[in-house]
């Protein structure tokens, strides 16, 4: 495994070459980590469920039939289609107080939750990277930008989200933006501190003396080295966004209530939680498992991609 074939004459006695620890690639290490495996598999499964929702024994999740309200899991009832015709349907997870099929709503809810989680993470990371790079590299911008970020951070995130969603018209877009905004300062801080520390790395200084232009250093040397911590941060944002969406729905300021989201299903079902726990139970399980999976995945990614680990060769 030695890299240098024509070594210096004395090198065969040197013990140094023996110390080269051949590190498996990132992908190998990821594939080997139990948390990444479990979290990743769960996420994959949920994604498949979200995509295949229409063929998993579901009906239109907004359809209802008051005659079939409050059915227990497994019961059979009727549901009225948009054409006004009644069809028989088995309610695998029961029905809610409108007579909507919880099974359908939960599965379609997976879509919404994943979209909210992933979109929030992407949005927050994207904006955070732009702000963080700017603050880390443009000295004049650093101070004012970071003060604004401090200000945003000083406002508890959920309050910003609640206020924004309540003041805008609640829609998928506004909910995503409202949940993402409070996360931006954290990403910005992370990116900025990474930029500041990577900027001091000898390999960046070497690039400077090699005459590499600033922008190229930024995107060629600095940004790629922030990717790993950003992925980790992104997963945590994703998890908390999914949870926040549910909390917003619970408080009554979330996505439109006819939209099938786990938060909405639980908010709708909580009134009769003690009587018909399935209303809260099924979406609750899906929510907890999803957030758990994302968090576990995040922990695994952190273990594998953590910059401290990466520095050791």
């Amino acid at each position, binding site marked *: *495994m030695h*890299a*240098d*074939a*024509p*070594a*210096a004459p*004395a*090198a065969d*006695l*040197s*013990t*140094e*070459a*023996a*110390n*080269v*620890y*051949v*590190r498996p690639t990132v992908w190998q290490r990821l594939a080997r980590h139990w948390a990444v495996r479990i979290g990743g598999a769960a996420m994959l499964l949920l994604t498949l469920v979200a995509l295949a929702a229409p063929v998993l024994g579901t009906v239109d999740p907004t359809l209802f039939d008051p005659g079939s309200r409050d059915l227990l899991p497994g019961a059979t009832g009727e549901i009225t289609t948009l054409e006004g015709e009644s069809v028989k349907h088995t309610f695998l997870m029961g029905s809610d107080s409108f007579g909507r099929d919880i099974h359908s709503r939960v599965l379609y809810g997976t879509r919404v939750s994943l979209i909210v989680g992933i979109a929030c993470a992407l949005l927050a990371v994207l904006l955070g990277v732009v702000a963080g790079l700017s603050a880390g590299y443009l000295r004049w911008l650093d101070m004012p930008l970071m003060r604004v970020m401090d200000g945003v951070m000083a406002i508890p995130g959920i309050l910003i989200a609640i206020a924004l969603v309540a003041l805008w018209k609640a829609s998928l877009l506004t909910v995503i933006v409202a949940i993402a905004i409070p996360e931006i300062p954290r990403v910005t801080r992370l990116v900025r501190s990474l930029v500041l520390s990577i900027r001091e*790395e*000898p*390999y*960046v*200084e*070497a*690039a*400077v*003396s*090699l*005459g*590499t*232009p600033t922008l*190229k250093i930024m995107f060629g*040397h600095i940004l*790629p*080295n922030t990717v790993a911590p950003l992925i980790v941060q992104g997963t945590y944002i994703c998890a908390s966004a999914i949870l926040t969406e549910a909390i917003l729905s619970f408080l009554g300021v979330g996505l439109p209530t006819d939209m099938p989201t786990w938060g909405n299903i639980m908010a709708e079902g909580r009134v009769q939680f003690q009587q018909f726990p399935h209303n809260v139970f099924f979406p609750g399980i899906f929510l907890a498992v999803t957030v758990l999976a994302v968090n576990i995945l995040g922990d695994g990614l952190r273990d594998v991609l953590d910059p401290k680990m*990466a*520095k050791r*060769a």
Partner: protein
Amino acid sequence: MGAVLEIRNLAIALPRGGDRAQAVAGVDLTVERGEIVCLVGESGSGKSVIAHAVMGLSPKELKAVAGEILLEGEDILRASPERLRELRCVRMSMIFQEPMTALNPVMRCGDQIDEVLAMHTALGAAERRERVRRVIEEVHLPDPERMMASYPHQLSGGQRQRIMIAMALIMNPVLLIADEPTTALDVTTQAQILKLIRELQQNHGTGVLFITHDFGVVAEIADRVAVLRLGTLVEMRAKADLLARPQHEYTRMLIGSVPGIEPKRQGGGETAPLVLKAAGLSKVYRSGGFLSARRAVHAAEDVSFEIRRGQTLGIVGESGSGKSTVARCIARLIDPSAGSVSLGSDEIATVSARALRPLRRRVQIVFQDPYRSLNPRRTVGEAIIEGPLNYGMGRAQALARARSLMETVRLDPDALDRYPHQFSGGQRQRICIARALALEPELLIADEAVSALDVSVQAQVLRLFDEIRERMNLAMLFITHDLRVAAQVCDHVAVMSRGRVVEYGATREVFGAPRHEYTRALFAAAPGRGYTFGSPS
């Protein structure tokens, strides 16, 4: 009376996935009362593993699988955790490499020593305080009361190591394990600490197991020497005998790799064209302001020197002397506060960033830490061609040059598409040199470029630097804290202390007859001066 420490046939397993099955195997070693045994080896040889095993401080993954470690006849490997705790500091003590981090930063030094007494004696608070005060005096620290009340960060490196020694010896143990205790210290401080260890060891008749990689230190302090290579003991003999007549070829190689302190190069060449001239170079860091008093730190002050083609100038100094600041000013990684740096006929200290760009290629730099000098996400090929591409060379041509440079630095040209982590430290340093050479600079700066390397690798890289300079007729600026290294490669040296150049001249003259007081102290402190290394027999 038997040996204080007797290690018999010790084998310690490495966890799976390591580079070998056992960290140490079949090691036999004894330390007699009042004797200093040096355990020498390069990084990864397993010397610290042995030290920790003796203290019973090995991490769980490193399990002793065979042999015994007898402390005055009692087997450490089979002692209960409680018994081990009773033995520590009482019968055996340990001091560490980094006095910086080995002391608890949030606890007063006095309390940290006191903790030992509180643990192992039944003394009252006042008596303990008196004992602590006495031991602090014994390690020659001034103003014991103040030392006791100080936090570690308020002390210098040497003072901290003295506190560590005081802590280790307060219970008068029979065995002291010193794990590279002076490696992190400046050479003058190192000399004082070595002297202190010697003094205390003689006063108390302590047996010392002294771990080091530095043959200079070995020459200073050892009674007997054990050489460790990849976990096995290759040779163990009395110091004089071993240094003069190494038996094992590994020992010979190691000793042969130690740079000699006698200057090798003649200097001269005063007629070659001037490449770099620094005049009155200064760098001042200002801090504070608003509310706190403004402070100005003069990292470099009025530094002047010149380098001609084909010559090497060494800047020598201890940490904080400002030598790296000078290097970075010349590479314009930082902007000097005052003075001029002219590269040929071009002034580079004050030009704008835009005007600087074409000049940058003429000065290249190689850094100390081979692990951080290469972007972990780029292949070495990309690293080497980055410079040429920046200056408009075509990719194919740049790659061709990279291949030939790989040969120049004695690496396999086919390894260009590998990533840095697939190379050892020495190999990476070669890659960094290749990267610097890719721009065909006039001046190559080596900022402590061999300091992080093991001695055998260091010798190879030093040879490489010499070869390159000769072949390419380069001017070199060689920054180092190691006088031996400077003696090997420099035509001229500038000795720096507290930001100023205190002595500047041809290497032979400076080394032969140092004029400045500081230079003299520096030379006096260089370990192992009495021995001549570097001439493989």
